[in-house]
């Protein structure tokens, strides 16, 4: 059974015996199932015992045939074997089912905790663990745990028992032959262990090469228009040949290693049977071993050597699973970044006054703070626009207001109350942020628009869609609100997605609305229309919007120009124009009424001189 959902594999190369301690973390999860686990184990021990008895009957039967002195005795051993088979079948099926159900349940518990833990994490966490990384932990590493619980662990637990049972019967028949036969087995076990462990880097290489093929193909086909426009098809095909050949080579190398592994085992494993054949055969000729014992010996050897190779394999599985366990708990152990204040007194009516005092915030690892002392108050009912270059800190400011970024106490206030004192759910109800990146879930448009509170009446949803300028789109879609969007449905254009995101924010009708540059893919005319509509809709409530366009900002009561984490200038549209600063320059360039090339180049020069253009790469507001 293979999962069609593929994620990059876990790194296993550094797994070593020292990491085995991490497996201890799984004990609390296993403890819940202590009783069934014990019962399953006991059942499996019984099956091993039954397995060990079968060769005894084989021995009896063959001896009775080989030795003329003994009456042929066939029916009893045959019936006994059949009886044992039936009993074994029942016990084995039951214990195995219980055991495997436990392994599934443990993974269920782990996954549930994993999802819950991740749900409440903040941006620092997601910077550290990417989506692909988290998925790989949730899928591959938890899968590893399942393997180790359902197979590896039991093999190790049963190993001693099987060995003891097999050895008991063998020593009973011939201690000397037993000693000889057992001698090569540790070598077999060690070889199995080291070769199985040596396999991991090959697997990883192979997986990585496959990931290369996948990402090359994906990227190439996504950019097929560019490639064809630039007539680069043949070059790309040549590159693909290299990527594909490299993958084939990696698979071949992994297969060759596996081949060597099989070769080594195929040579090592028969050593003990050869000893039985040679030494056991001599003992039979010397009359100190019966032919039946000779045959039974082979059967016991099979049992013992099987469990010895299995333990080599299981131990290698253990080291890999230990690394996986570590990776799972690394996520589970990360404390929540944003702490929820459950106690804060909550005003029943939010007026919507939002103020930032001396706001300072640096992204983890960034050289300079994204926001470096901003004082800004949006009065209840006011509309304020933020303007500024990419990376100036505008988005950071908006995120701080809804605690998507955790700022210290005493910096952001809603109606005069420190937002750190408000319960998160309450805060995010009062302040709605429409983020810059238009993200839609792959479900119906209806569910996307009323994501926060499913089950709103359709007229409300349609109303919000109209307000966001999505009305026409909605009418064009054959299934209307029931249209599936996202990966598995209709792919909306960037502008449509942006408007849907906006509708999702508008529908909440929050006292404070924060719009983070959510018109960038919408053409100016449509934007105008939406903004005009918005003014009526939001009348009397607070709106804070980020934009690049003067034409957007001019609708606001007041405008702040943010640069390098500071407020550069602020005022009304008219005031700022009169001031003749950055805003005025911007207005001139964007409205294009000013044909003065000199002024343009001056602005361009200013911009280039100190522009840390790629500040966004460090986690700014791109």
């Amino acid at each position: 059974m293979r999962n069609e959902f593929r994620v990059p594999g876990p790194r296993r190369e550094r797994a070593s015996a020292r990491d085995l301690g991490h497996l201890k973390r799984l004990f609390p999860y296993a403890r819940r199932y202590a009783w069934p686990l014990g019962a399953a184990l006991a059942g499996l021990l019984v099956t091993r015992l039954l397995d060990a008895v079968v060769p005894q009957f084989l021995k009896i039967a063959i001896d009775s045939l080989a030795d003329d002195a003994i009456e042929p005795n066939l029916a009893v051993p045959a019936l006994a074997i059949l009886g044992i088979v039936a009993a074994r079948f029942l016990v084995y099926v039951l214990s195995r089912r219980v055991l495997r159900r436990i392994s599934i349940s443990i993974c269920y518990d782990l996954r549930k905790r994993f999802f819950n833990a991740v749900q409440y994490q903040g941006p620092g966490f997601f910077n550290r663990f990417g989506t692909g990384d988290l998925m790989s932990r949730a899928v591959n590493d938890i899968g590893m745990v399942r393997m180790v619980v359902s197979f590896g662990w039991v093999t190790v637990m049963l190993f001693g028992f099987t060995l003891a049972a097999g050895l008991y019967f063998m020593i009973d028949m011939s201690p000397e032959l037993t000693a000889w036969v057992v001698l090569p087995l540790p070598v077999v076990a060690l070889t199995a262990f080291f070769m199985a462990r040596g396999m991991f880097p090959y697997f990883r290489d192979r997986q990585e090469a496959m990931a290369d093929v996948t990402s090359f193909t994906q990227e190439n086909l996504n950019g097929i228009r560019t490639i064809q426009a630039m007539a680069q098809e043949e070059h790309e095909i040549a590159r693909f040949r290299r990527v594909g050949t490299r993958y084939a080579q990696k698979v071949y190398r992994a297969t060759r290693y596996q081949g060597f592994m099989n070769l080594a085992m195929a040579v090592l494993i028969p050593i003990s049977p050869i000893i039985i054949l040679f030494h056991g055969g001599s003992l039979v000729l010397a009359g100190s071993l019966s032919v039946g014992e000779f045959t039974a010996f082979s059967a016991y050897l099979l049992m013992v050597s099987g469990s010895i190779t299995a333990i080599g394999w299981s131990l290698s599985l253990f080291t890999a699973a230990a690394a996986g366990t570590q990776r799972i708990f690394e996520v589970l152990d990360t404390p929540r970044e944003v702490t929820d204040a459950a106690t804060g007194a909550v005003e029943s009516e939010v007026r919507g006054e939002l103020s930032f005092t001396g706001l300072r915030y640096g992204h983890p690892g960034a050289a300079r703070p994204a926001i470096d002392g901003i004082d800004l108050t949006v009065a209840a009912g006011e509309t304020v626009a933020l303007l500024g270059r990419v990376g100036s800190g505008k988005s950071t400011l908006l995120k701080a207001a809804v605690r998507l970024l955790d700022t210290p106490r005493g910096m952001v206030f809603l109606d005069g109350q420190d937002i750190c004192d408000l319960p998160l759910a309450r805060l995010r109800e009062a302040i709605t942020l429409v983020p810059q990146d238009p993200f839609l879930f792959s479900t119906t448009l209806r569910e996307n628009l009323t994501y926060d509170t499913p089950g709103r009446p359709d007229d409300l949803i349609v109303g919000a869609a109209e307000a966001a300028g999505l009305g026409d789109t909605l009418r064009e879609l054959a299934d209307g609100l029931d249209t599936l969007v996202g990966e598995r449905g209709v792919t909306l254009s960037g502008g449509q997605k942006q408007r849907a995101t906006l509708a999702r924010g508008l529908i909440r009708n929050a006292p404070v609305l924060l719009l983070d540059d959510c018109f960038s893919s919408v053409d100016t005319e449509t934007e105008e229309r939406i903004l005009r509509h918005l003014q009526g809709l939001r009348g009397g409530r607070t709106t804070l919007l980020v934009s690049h366009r003067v034409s957007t900002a001019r609708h606001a009561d007041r405008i702040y120009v943010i640069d390098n984490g500071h407020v550069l200038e602020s005022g009304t549209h008219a005031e700022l124009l009169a001031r003749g600063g950055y805003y005025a320059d911007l207005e001139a360039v964007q409205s294009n009424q000013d044909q003065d090339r000199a002024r343009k180049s001056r602005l361009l020069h200013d911009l280039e001189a100190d522009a840390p253009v790629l500040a966004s790469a460090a986690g700014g507001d791109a």
Partner: protein
Amino acid sequence: MSEATRDYSAFDAELTHQALNLRLFARLLGWMKPYRITLFTSVALVVGAAAMSVLLPVIQGRVVVDTILLPNAASADLPDYGLVDATEWLVASLGVEPLTAAVLLFILLVLAQAVLMFAHRLTLASSALKALRDLRLDLFAALERKPASFYDRVAVGRVMTRVTNDVENLFELLLGFGMLAGEFVPFVLALFLMFHISTEVTGLLLLVIPAAAAATYVFRMAMREIFRLVRDSVSGLNQYMQEDLMGIEVVQLSGREARNAEEYRRRNQENRRQEFRAIDHEVVFETFNTSLASIAVAVVIWYGGGEVVREEISLGSIILFNQYINMMINPVVAVGQQFNTLFRSMASGERIFQALDWDERIHEPPAPVRLPERLRGEIEFRNVRFAYPGGEDVLKDVSFQIAPGEKLAIVGPTGSGKSTVIRLLARFYDFADGMIFLDGTDVNAIATHDLRQRIGVVLQDFHVFSGTVLDNIALSNPAITRERAQWAARAANADPFIRQLADGYDTELAERGHNLSQGQQQLLAFARVLAADPEILVLDEATSSIDTGSELAIQEALHRITEGRTSIVIAHRLQTIQECDRVLVLHRGQVREHGTHEELIARRGIYYTLHELQFQDSAVAAELQGLDTEPTTPDARSRWAGPRDGRGDLPDFDPAEGGPRTF
């Protein structure tokens, strides 16, 4: 396949075939052909290895037990395949004990078997891997050459998995065949041997096979549905988590954490339920097969033992039979295991060949006209009419000329057909009505590859490939050196911002260019096109707003790069077109106005209105309502709203222009 009969939905359908389709295997063998010698060697090796594994128990049972340990009369005429003679020969020539000789022979066979099997695995993997690498390359090349109209209709995600997963499935299939051969050859040899020794015992043992086969069949049939449900529940679970993680901000902003955790728990439970069901069945089946082997042992002891007593067969034969039991059951188990792989790979094969056989392509002239070393850069559209497949006319009788070195701006409301003009010029689509000339040569007579090298098209959305800035400018064209790329970046005004990146030209760009602003991407797009030094420059400007710094840089760059080059600028923001010599106004697929900026302003027509709309705070917006609404059938709209995965941000979807927005 004609335009009308192409069924693109085939690419969206899940192909899950129930019936064996042998034609697929025959086609697959076509790719194995260059490596047939390796493949045949591999098959020969597996037969050899199988023979060894069948002979090993003969040494134990017939040579050691029957002739050395318990010499008896009953065994004299039972077959031993010359192994008794070989042992005797060894005894005679080496002067060792018979037992030692038998053990030596045994060791020899063990080593031979191990080495043959090793060689078999390597040769099989080698030939299969090479064949599939070729198949994968052919498939990729076929997809690479599919025209724009194909990608308008088929989601990239759908065709992509054919190159990756589906080819992998075929590899699994080939390995599976190898595995089956490794099980079946010993089975047949062992059966042959067993019949030789005792027809009765063998006949009795053969009853085990239908039992195992029936169990396998029943199990597989029962499990197909269960496994499918498990797979669905697993992918449902994982997709839910992945999407939740990707939209985590929205989740938290909407206060959906608890609700989503609950939904995840529901899916997790469903998954657990399905997994429980699956393993409950699986355990029974696994245990049944091992039990079957033990039952067979009992049969051999009971009936075979009786035969020994009756002196029909030897004791050694009993031991031999015992060892062959697994050889009888294993192939049945192996077939069961390969069952799913077989059906899965058949569907995969079908998907691969469907993509390979898809014959949609841009018309290539049989004897293309070679363009001169240096073009003058004269373009003429003569009565061009065009409609996207299944749509209405997007261009209706469009004619215009561009003189060498001239800069032409094409403007018009959304849906006027602006972008289509350049799509036809660069021959992304075939057109039948009207002619387009480049320096007097019909573009349909020029090889598309040649044509596209001469016409540099800057697409609306800049596609960032993962790699360095330099890689993104040069693409995979080996002719573009570092110096050339840097020159292009300077010309396109991209140099200043590139130099500020952490590693300059060697900075790795994130997938989809998330670490570049829109404007920076646009500048890079200019640089990319300039690096190839096309004689004709075509810019399809993006609608998105970009930050002012980049906006200015773009205007500067435009001014510089169009200098002395025939250029066409599709302008959405009218400020970009001030550098142009002439403006062409398209409306509803027709040329409505053309002239210089001043002339058109004076004329107070469509251009004037558009201009007012953008610069005068939309005072005239109401007046324009009529301009923007195109009469289209609802039918045409929904058709274009089909799934188009993985395309990044498409500019606004507008049905009137009929086509995709990306060109």
